């Protein structure tokens, strides 16, 4: 890629001699893992919904599982993008939907009830991770102290003087025009 890119450049343009380190903050790594997990799970739900419904004793709900798969893939791609925060929040919301669907399968007459319980436990764990990721990738982490800038007008002679000068110029222009 660098080779191709260099062909696009003029001969004199600076070229890389030695590359500096790449920085990836830990919060972004978590978001990446969750994003890929989301895409993997989504693909499974989309392509093999029957395996999932059979394991959970939810036969007949294949369409729902497929729809959830689409949702997972969407959230996953979003979590891998620069808008990872929105992606992770959509995962948190999705965990809620998953939990609700699983709860409805926790019927006494479901022979796979123990599997459902296990799945619920997993969703709970993942939801915690999603929530942590969403918190950590939020713009301006809440723990940071905030500096306000009420004294930075940018007008060395003060705001009032700047306004007055502008009014003078405008009235001059008017007088000049009439």
């Amino acid at each position, binding site marked *: 890629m660098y080779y191709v890119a260099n062909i696009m450049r003029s001969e004199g343009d600076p070229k890389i001699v030695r590359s*500096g380190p790449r920085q990836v903050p830990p919060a972004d790594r978590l978001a990446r893992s969750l994003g890929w997990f989301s895409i993997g799970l989504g693909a499974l739900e989309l392509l093999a919904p029957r395996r999932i419904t059979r394991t959970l004793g939810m036969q007949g709900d294949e369409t729902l599982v497929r729809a959830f798969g689409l949702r997972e893939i969407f959230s996953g791609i979003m979590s891998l993008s620069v808008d990872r925060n929105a992606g992770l929040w959509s995962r948190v919301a999705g965990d809620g939907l998953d939990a609700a669907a699983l709860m409805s399968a926790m019927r006494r007459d479901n022979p796979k009830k123990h599997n459902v319980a296990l799945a619920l436990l997993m969703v709970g764990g993942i939801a915690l991770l999603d929530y942590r990721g969403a918190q950590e990738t939020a713009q301006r982490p809440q723990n940071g102290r905030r500096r306000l800038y009420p004294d930075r007008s*940018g007008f060395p002679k003060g705001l009032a003087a700047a306004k007055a000068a502008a009014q003078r110029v*405008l009235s001059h222009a008017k007088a000049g025009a009439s």
Partner: protein
Amino acid sequence: MKALVWHGKEDIRCDEVTDPRIEDPRDAIIRVTSCAICGSDLHLFHNFIPGMLPGDIMGHETMGEVVETGDGMNGKLKKGDRIVVPFTIICGQCEQCKRGNFSVCETTNRKRHLAEKVFGHTTAGLFGYTHLTGGYPGGQAEYLRVPFADTTHIKVPDGLSDEQLLFLSDIFPTGWQAAAQCDIEPTDTVAIWGCGPVGQMAIRSAILLGANQVIAIDCVPERLSMAEAGGATIIDFKTESVMERLQELTDGRGPEKCIDATGTESHVMPSQPDTILDRAKQMLMLESDRPHVLREMIYLCRPGGVISIPGVYSGFSDKIPMGALMNKGLTVRTGQTHVNRWTDDLLRRIADGEIDPSFVITHTVDLERGPEMYRLFRDKQDSCVKVVLKP
């Protein structure tokens, strides 16, 4: 030399690269004394604007000292001169340059065939800003080759600091042009979406151009406080309804002049559902921009008013309310900034102490720390508004 190099999405590194050299008689090389990170650089950092290649050097807000020139300077620039480099490269001779339409100079884009395909016509060459605009290496580096240097420069006096002068390269004239394009009248309310560096400059410019009332909209408290210091009435769109507050502040008429200092990357949030739809479409490559601010401005602007757009858009935008735009008789004005059209006047205003653009700087660090500063600025951490880098 050291330079901040684009390697891919969210991957900018401080690399060792070969030094630039004179390639044309109109070239000059400057030793960079200060440079800055711009909101436009964030669009590139996010790879939202196509046309970056791995190995491209970032940066288009740069100043320094001339250390070498070609022999085509015609006495306009010499070794030792202190200059601010405008981000638009200009030839000074084409018809557009002669009209002062510098950002659409017809000669300086060395990859004009790309621009002609994508935009229909070529626009000016820009520093550190994709191969659509020439793929010129940028100025977040120790040295910069300035093409067409005999015209592409702003000579600055020694008595003023780098910090006071640096923003003549971009954001000060950008904010100024955004306000000037509004043709402000003394009774006007000017509403400005986005209180980043460009929005801050637009606020001060609207004040200096005599607006009756300036209203600034954002959701970042420190930026809002800076906007208020500059004379704006503020609206926090996370906690208040922009529509209700604007109606209230203008007796129901709406602002006469609206400025979009946000651009293509409007915040994605559930309370603005159109941004979520836009984001989804971006993912499916059905849309390139998130024009939430544009929609809001068209809807809220007073009929007969002006929509001024310094914010950068990259490609195709959906659901622009053309019906409202047309029936309300709004005027749209936009463009990359014609930097040198304004800089003589603005330099005089700085020298006269009318304005000091350095107010916007919150972080000054070494060039090597550039990569981490991209994230800090993007995430608005540590109350960051504007970063200046020292090579």
